[in-house]
């Protein structure tokens, strides 16, 4: 497979390829590379922060006292920041790159948020464990997570006082899409999810006495359905496979759907809802490597940040600053805007985020300086850079490992740097401008490339 295609596959199934990976894989066949991708993701490495302090507060209280609840919330606030930062690290360094990317994808399908770190951590690991598994099991597991029963009020859904929130979103946002079910389907299926709850440790509890045992009619079928039955009936609708395949296509292939490609995916997925099989099909398809799909997507803020960290290793001395940047860029992990999730695509970009995205690599990595040294005049740069450092360099406390970058890119010719840093061709006029500038060093050239609109693409 050629380098360009390897880079494409690596960006879509992860966050880009290193020079070593590019070199190694460009000698292999598509099948070999794709197999390796899935092999690397066989195991699930959980994402965990130490929650022993919180568990100590919960102890054996079946229902938390207001005081304990406040303590848990307070401890959780700090721990959720820790979890966020740890997730970014795992996205950056995990060998199971595809599983991590899929986890990120599913987190924006089964959107959830919670202020208890144990619940949201469990939810996140549930996404990770099921990310390449069977979609039917996945939806059922998701419906029983403590964080989800809280977020969409299944907990408050009782026999005599039904709450339709989960039933509605299950169909509208998680499996079928608007217009593919009736209001009556919502009412009837909500009854099947009555009695779902959890204990203080976040373990699923089915409260039989709150469960509505009456006969329900759902999508033309009649019976005393359980929540799992309802999910089975939903998955019988081909629209469910269609809905998920469209989401996969938009996320991994192209913002604009190609109906024929999606149709082929649906045929594969509807057979047995095997997510791994679907993803293999996508990555093995010729159309996945068509030119219109390469470098055509706008990176999400997390893809942008993780990609940057992979390229030039950087750590934040104050972890809150990493969250601050996520907020400014418009995507805080574990903190979706609402149950519809992040819209993605062009909506990542507004006047503020584009300015920040263009400027951030230089701010974080290079004392806010982008070299504009013309050919043959690079000697003034050092003085300018010091002035910049004084004026702008203080905002973020970071440790940047340019040594590591230089080592990784030792064997990369400076002229070849664009194909490592960027996923799409540089537009002609910008390329013309870059030609007038001196390639002072790989570092300065790398920062120049990262400060382009082209760097936002993957």
């Amino acid at each position: 497979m050629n380098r360009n295609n390897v880079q494409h596959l690596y960006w879509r199934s992860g966050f880009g390829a290193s020079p070593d990976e590019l070199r190694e894989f460009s000698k292999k066949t598509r099948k070999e590379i794709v197999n390796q991708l899935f092999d690397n993701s066989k195991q699930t490495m959980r994402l965990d922060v130490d929650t022993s302090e919180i568990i100590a507060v919960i102890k054996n209280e079946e229902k938390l006292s207001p005081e304990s609840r406040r303590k848990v919330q307070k401890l959780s606030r700090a721990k959720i920041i820790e979890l966020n930062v740890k997730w970014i690290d795992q996205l950056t360094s995990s060998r199971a790159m595809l599983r991590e990317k899929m986890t990120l994808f599913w987190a924006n399908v089964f959107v959830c948020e919670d202020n208890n770190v144990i619940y949201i951590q469990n939810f996140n690991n549930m996404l990770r464990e099921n990310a390449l598994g069977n979609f039917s099991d996945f939806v059922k597991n998701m419906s029983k997570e403590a964080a989800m029963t809280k977020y969409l009020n299944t907990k408050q859904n009782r026999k005599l006082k039904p709450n339709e929130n989960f039933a509605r979103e299950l169909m509208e946002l998680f499996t079928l899409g608007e217009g593919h079910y009736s209001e009556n389907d919502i009412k009837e299926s909500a009854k099947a999810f009555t009695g779902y709850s959890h204990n203080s440790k976040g373990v699923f509890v089915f409260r039989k006495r709150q469960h509505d045992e009456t006969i329900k009619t759902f999508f033309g079928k009649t019976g005393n359905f359980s929540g799992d039955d309802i999910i089975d009936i939903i998955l019988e609708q081909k629209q469910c496979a269609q809905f998920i395949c469209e989401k996969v296509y938009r996320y991994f292939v192209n913002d604009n759907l190609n109906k024929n490609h999606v149709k082929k995916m649906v045929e594969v997925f509807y057979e047995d809802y095997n997510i791994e099989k679907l993803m293999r099909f996508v990555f093995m398809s010729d159309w996945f490597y068509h030119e219109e799909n390469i470098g055509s997507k706008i990176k999400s803020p997390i893809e942008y940040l993780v990609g940057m960290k992979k390229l030039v290793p950087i750590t934040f001395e104050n972890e809150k600053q990493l969250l601050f940047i996520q907020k400014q860029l418009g995507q805080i992990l574990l903190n979706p805007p609402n149950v519809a999730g992040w819209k993605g695509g062009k909506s990542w970009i507004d006047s503020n985020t584009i300015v920040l995205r263009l400027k951030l690599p230089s701010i974080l990595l290079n004392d806010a300086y982008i070299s504009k040294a013309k050919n043959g005049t690079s000697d003034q740069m050092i003085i300018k850079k010091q002035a910049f450092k004084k004026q702008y360099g203080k905002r973020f406390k970071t440790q940047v490992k340019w040594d590591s970058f230089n080592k990784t890119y030792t064997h990369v010719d400076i002229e070849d740097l664009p194909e490592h840093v960027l996923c799409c061709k540089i537009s002609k006029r910008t390329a013309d401008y870059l030609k007038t500038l001196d390639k002072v060093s790989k570092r300065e050239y790398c920062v120049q490339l990262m400060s382009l609109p082209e760097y936002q693409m993957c």
Partner: protein
Amino acid sequence: MDRRKFLKQSSLASSLFFVPSFVKAFEQVASSDLGFKRLVIIQLSGGNDGLNTVVPFRNDLYYKERPTLAIPKNQMIRLNDELGLHPSLTPLKRLYDNGYLSIINNVGYPNPVRSHFRSMDIWQTVTDSDKFSQSGWLGRYLDHYGKQPYSAIEVDESLSLALKGERFNGIATQNPAILHNLSKDPYFKNISRHQNDAHLSEHNLGYLYKTMIEAQSSAKYIYETSKTATSLQQYPDNKFGKQLKTVAQFINSGLDTKVFYTSLGGFDTHVNQLNTQKRLLKTYADGIESFVEDLKANHSFKDTLVLTFSEFGRRVKQNANVGTDHGTANNVFVIGSHLKKQGLYNQAPSLSNLDDNGDLKFEIDFRTIYATVLNKWLDIDDQTILNKSFNQLDFI
């Protein structure tokens, strides 16, 4: 559609395309002739306790449910025989006495949600409480009537969902100099200089270039225009005061912006509410009074309408920690010099007819307020923006 409306709308529509500068000049003359109305929205985040803001001091239930939290009768700023303002709101009372304030009581929406995020989302996206939208109401206003990112400005660090449309977004800036500085690096100027406008929005990369170029020119425009305004007005020395000062500077410099958005947070008073709310309401009222004075001194108050809301009110009954929990309906403040109905717009909420949670049952849907503002103040078709038809109120 009357002539005035037609002129305004057609000039807005034409500017969606690249128009020669003489046409733009004409537009500005036209819009100033018609009176350039501006809307300022202030969001009190966290859920302000409306019952301790506009206090029903004749109501025994109020004192019964809040034995250690109620505002004592003798500290109240009386508005009439039933309602009074929180003692921190003295400046607001002065606006009230001048006929610049309309208080709309008991504003909410059907099937209220008591989660901050979700309820704020509902206020910002204007959906039914069981529906979702990924665009905000002011963003949709930009989709239809905006010309430039700076047609709507949020004076804050980042852009709220309220100002994100389907196709257009507003711009956020706390300090126009910083935004301008960030975007004016000659490197960016050089890469945007020779781009060919015609093909810029066809694909994602083109969209990035287009947005970059617009951001540069918006940042420059906001910075250069706003620095022409000077103000002698003193503002309280806090973040909110600074934000309002920036909004006033934008307005008084004649910035071509229809909507401003800003917020004051910290109202989530579950514990020891009294001091927190006292401090926050003082910050709010002192800031607002300075703001109004500043606009008046620059003759721009007559063309400005200020709307203040919070995502929900709080429970009638106080909790065990001398605080209050999340509730439902709340009051909305409308400030301006052209109010049709000054003072109290409607009755105080009933404290005896509560819902199952012990929360107020709303009387006025907030969307009718938005519809009224869009239609009667900004002079546009509210239904296009709100995706539904709502009754109009008569406060303006």
